[in-house]
């Protein structure tokens, strides 16, 4: 019986198994290389490709839990697995093409293994249905990212970033662990379904539960860089190697969102338990007085406003993108306030769109730093005339991030705002829109420097190899195409959130 269940679980755990094996293979293979090599990068890509393949094979698998209710295999985790692999794949390519990493004196051995470990952590974050499992997954992903952030051991900036990241991550996960232990104390279980069942059947001390929930929020908030858990973000993003920053801004964030959504929707809503019903609009809330969507709304507004407002003053591109990614998390959280299939699927849609536009922006930043040796926006004057393809792509990413129509970012925002309006949160939609206006300022500022000011001094054309251009276009084209042809993506997102049985 026991063996049977483990074997059954393993048969649905191929993508994760493959990633684990890939980590081991990379560590082993690297032992044989004295110098820097790309071999482990290729192995990482092969591992990701194989994991992708086996993930695709799970496309029609019925939603279920494996390993004694630890991990779920369902359309929701499937969506995030696809995103994470895609992002991991692109990051490996970024690493190949980044001069910053190429010129560093360090061996690459841990780098790719850690990258895969982070992806594996993300997989588990997206699919765990047990709080303990969830915590472990979070730690796996966090620990890998601490090391990745400090990959340039001899750079002060990088080391400082890593240290700050460790300390801050430690505090957050400590708070989260405290929250989990309180929940265990209240409900007597770490299983999300059991928690949901217990809460809906038994009276609990609301204050204790609230404290527990919001302590846990520290862990989620830190992963997705929501205010007031965002402080590490600018420092770490600025100090880390650029491909790592890109990875943190997309993969970690996506996995954090997955975890957040699953925790709140499974543990604190009544779907699947038809015996409990409360009246009114907030039908999803199991307990009267437990207003978590309102809290999320406040956090969302604070997050995007702070991100956008502080970004205005930044002139370091990486730091600007860090604040931008904080603001972007705010928009996504906004959709979470609407606990309905429309809201959650809007969130997922936005995440998918965000993957392309944000990675695109980071890749453009990598190329600028490769060729122009600068991260300062003021020093990017007129480079639009010297590298048109790069800067036009950058323009696409920037416009998309600010949500201009005909780009994917517009569609993402459109779905979020329409979900808000349809559910009566007009004020939130207005705040979101005003935030988009503010964000336009700093996104456009970059373009202004690139295009509206003629280059001074050296004005020669700076071009890139074909590989760079292809990857750039591979990110820019989806950013435009998804702005026009987005039916399949929204369908996919809607399908993925069906398992929560929201109405």
């Amino acid at each position, binding site marked *: 019986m026991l063996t049977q269940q483990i074997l059954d679980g393993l048969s649905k755990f191929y993508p994760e198994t493959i990633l684990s094996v890939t980590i081991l293979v990379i560590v082993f293979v690297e032992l044989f290389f004295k110098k820097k090599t790309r071999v482990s990068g290729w192995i990482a890509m092969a591992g990701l490709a194989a994991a992708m393949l086996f993930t695709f094979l799970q496309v029609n698998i019925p939603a279920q839990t494996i390993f004694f209710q630890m991990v779920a295999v369902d359309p929701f985790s499937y969506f995030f697995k696809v995103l994470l692999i895609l992002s991991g794949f692109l990051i490996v390519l970024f690493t190949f093409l980044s001069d910053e990493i190429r010129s560093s004196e360090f061996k690459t051995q841990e780098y790719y293994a850690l990258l895969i470990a982070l992806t594996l952590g993300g997989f588990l974050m997206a699919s765990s249905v047990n709080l303990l499992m969830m915590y472990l997954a979070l730690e796996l992903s966090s620990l890998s990212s601490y090391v990745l952030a400090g990959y340039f051991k001899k750079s002060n900036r990088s080391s400082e970033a890593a*240290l*700050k990241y460790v*300390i*801050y991550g430690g*505090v*957050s996960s400590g*708070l989260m662990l405290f929250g989990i232990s309180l929940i265990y104390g209240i409900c007597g279980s770490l299983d999300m379904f059991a928690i949901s069942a217990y809460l809906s059947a038994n009276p609990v001390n609301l*204050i204790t539960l*609230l*404290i527990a929930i*919001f*302590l846990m*929020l*520290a862990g989620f908030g*830190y992963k997705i860089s929501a*205010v*007031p*858990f965002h*402080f*590490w973000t*600018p*420092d770490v993003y600025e100090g880390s190697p650029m491909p790592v920053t890109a990875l943190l801004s997309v993969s970690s964030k996506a996995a954090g969102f997955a975890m957040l959504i699953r925790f709140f929707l499974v543990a604190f809503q009544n779907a699947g338990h038809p015996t409990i019903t409360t009246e009114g609009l907030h039908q999803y809330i199991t307990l009267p*007085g437990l*207003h978590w969507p*309102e*809290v999320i709304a*406040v*956090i969302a507004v604070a997050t995007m406003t*702070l991100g956008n*407002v*502080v*970004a*205005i*003053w*930044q002139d370091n591109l990486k730091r600007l993108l860090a604040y931008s990614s904080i603001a972007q998390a705010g928009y996504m959280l906004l959709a979470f306030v609407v606990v309905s299939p429309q809201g959650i699927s809007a969130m997922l849609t936005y995440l998918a769109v965000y993957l392309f536009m944000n990675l695109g922006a980071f890749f453009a930043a990598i190329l600028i730093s490769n060729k122009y040796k600068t991260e300062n926006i003021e020093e990017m004057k007129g480079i639009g005339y010297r590298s048109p393809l790069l800067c036009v792509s950058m323009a696409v990413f920037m416009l998309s991030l600010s949500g201009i129509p005909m780009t994917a970012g517009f569609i993402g925002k459109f*779905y979020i705002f*329409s979900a808000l309006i*349809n559910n009566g949160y007009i004020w939130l939609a207005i705040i979101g829109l005003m935030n988009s206006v*503010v964000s336009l*300022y700093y996104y456009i500022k970059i373009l202004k420097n690139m295009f509206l000011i003629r280059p001074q001094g050296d004005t020669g054309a700076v071009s890139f190899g074909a590989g760079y251009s292809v990857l750039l276009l591979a990110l820019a084209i989806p950013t435009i195409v998804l702005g026009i*042809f987005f*039916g*399949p993506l*929204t*369908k996919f997102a809607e399908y993925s959130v069906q398992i929560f049985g929201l109405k």
Partner: protein
Amino acid sequence: MVNYFFLITLLPLIGFLVNGIFGYKIKNEKVAGIIGSGTILGSFIIALIAFFQLLGMPAEQRTITVTLFQWITAGSFNISAAYLIDPLSVVMSLIITGVGFLIHVYSIGYMHGDRGFARFFAFLNLFIFAMLNLVLGDNFLLMFLGWEGVGLCSYLLIGFWYEKKFTGDAANKAFWVNRIGDLGFMIAMFYILVNFGSLNFGAVFGAAGSSIAPGSTLITVITILLFVGATGKSAQIPLFIWLPDAMAGPTPVSALIHAATMVTAGVYMVARCSILFALAPFTMDLILAIGALTAFFAATIAVTQNDIKKILAYSTVSQLGFMFMALGAGAFSTGIFHVTTHAFFKALMFLGAGSVIHSMHEEQDVMNMGGLKNKMKVTFLTFLMGGIAISGIPPFSGFFSKDEILTNVYLSGNYLFFGLGVLTAFMTAFYIFRLIGLTFYGNPRYDEHKTHPHESPKVMTIPLIILAVLSVIGGFIGLPHIVGPNLIDHFLEPVFASARTILPVHHIEAGTEIMLIVISVFVAVVGIFLAYRAYAKAYKPEVSRNPVYNFVQNKYKVDEFYNAVIVTPLRMLSNLLYKFFDLIVIDGIVNGSGKFFTSLSGDWRKMQTGVIQDYAVISVAGIIAIIIFVLLVVK
């Protein structure tokens, strides 16, 4: 089996992308030209296949919907990017791609040596792409996309020679005037969406046919707004003023966009929505009246113009008026028939005019031409064919469609407009043969030492010959009842079937029909005769002192009237608003909020101290604040 029909629109798009993106690298004109015209030829062939496929189907079932993808899904609102292939859209597609192809080929010769050669072909391809989306779209939104797209291309091509100021002005004028029409179209679309819950043609027309009472306010408002859109795009009163100015663009553009295809978009749209218009008798009368008046006034202006392209432009406005007369009289298929024949002969005449202008070194004033018939034989003969066709001499194509329009107007009982139509037909014959007389007959009035007119190259004359043949025989697809079967009417019948069940049915007696034919031939012959006598001889231009003549020659001062009544007050108002509202209110808000956020940003970023202990403290404080917030405020 039908999935490849999307290639009809895809090929021009590919042509646009190739010429648009790599155009600056294509040094060889032939390559750009062949890519540009080849893609259109491909579209034409596929449209032909679609046509024959429809012919092979039973008449009532001749509809193929090609769904490309789900475009927008938001709640109950659902729009697919889908093409509707039915007799009406196939006829339009054949005209667009067929005539379009010939004009593309002609342009290879006409644009030879132009710096923007590849750009020109890119824009032309983009135009064809947009126009095909307009006619093939199976919902209002896609149609609107095409509608706006052709407007954009028209703007880009009118101002193609952007170094000259007046081309830019003309392009702007066209764009703005069209915007007024587009606004009508958009509001109509919103009304339709709100009241029918869909923008899909099938759904809207089905619901309209079954649930809307004829003559209800709603349908009248919607159709009037749609018609406002049509008056913009198809240059009808009161929005016709942009079309003559649009002649600033290269001549092939005038032929393709401002004569044969884009300007007929309004006619197509009304025909497509025939069921809606049939339910609104008031709008139908309005269309008839506007059409007749436009036809008449534009023809009077055409008589007095001296710029060869302007004459043809006013002639186009006038002929579009004829098409709207047909629509207003409920003869939708006749309107489309006239679109078809007009596309042939008007494209022909524009291209012929282009050939003349080309050989006269950009001279456009007919007063400075004369006697060209021996120097440019092919151009002259083909132009003559076009002239006879537009005048309405049987068996040339224009005769059949124009006669059918007049017959239908007569049958609808609006004898006043019938009279105007006959008068216009007379003037049409007159002004076209005035043009032919002044250009090709009589004495040369240009400096024969400087200008040596010569026939254009084959790449230009062959399209002329093909169009001339079509202008001659094109009318046989729509013979009068007493002579033979009306093929085009029969082919289009299923599209207009539901509209026809609502509209009154007229039966025509053979005697009446013969009488009408005699009248329309008679006026045409008289017109030609008078023009020939007056202008096909040694002619000495003189400045007219007749105030009425000058008033008409100055286009009834409509531009000046609009300037005084609309533009100037608007400018004053906007200046006032600018000074008060923009500079004080808007700029105040914008700059104020800018300053506000910048200072806010300056303050907030100080929170990012860089000291990790601060971060941890703020985070924990944040959690405590949240808990207090939940306990005190939300509860």
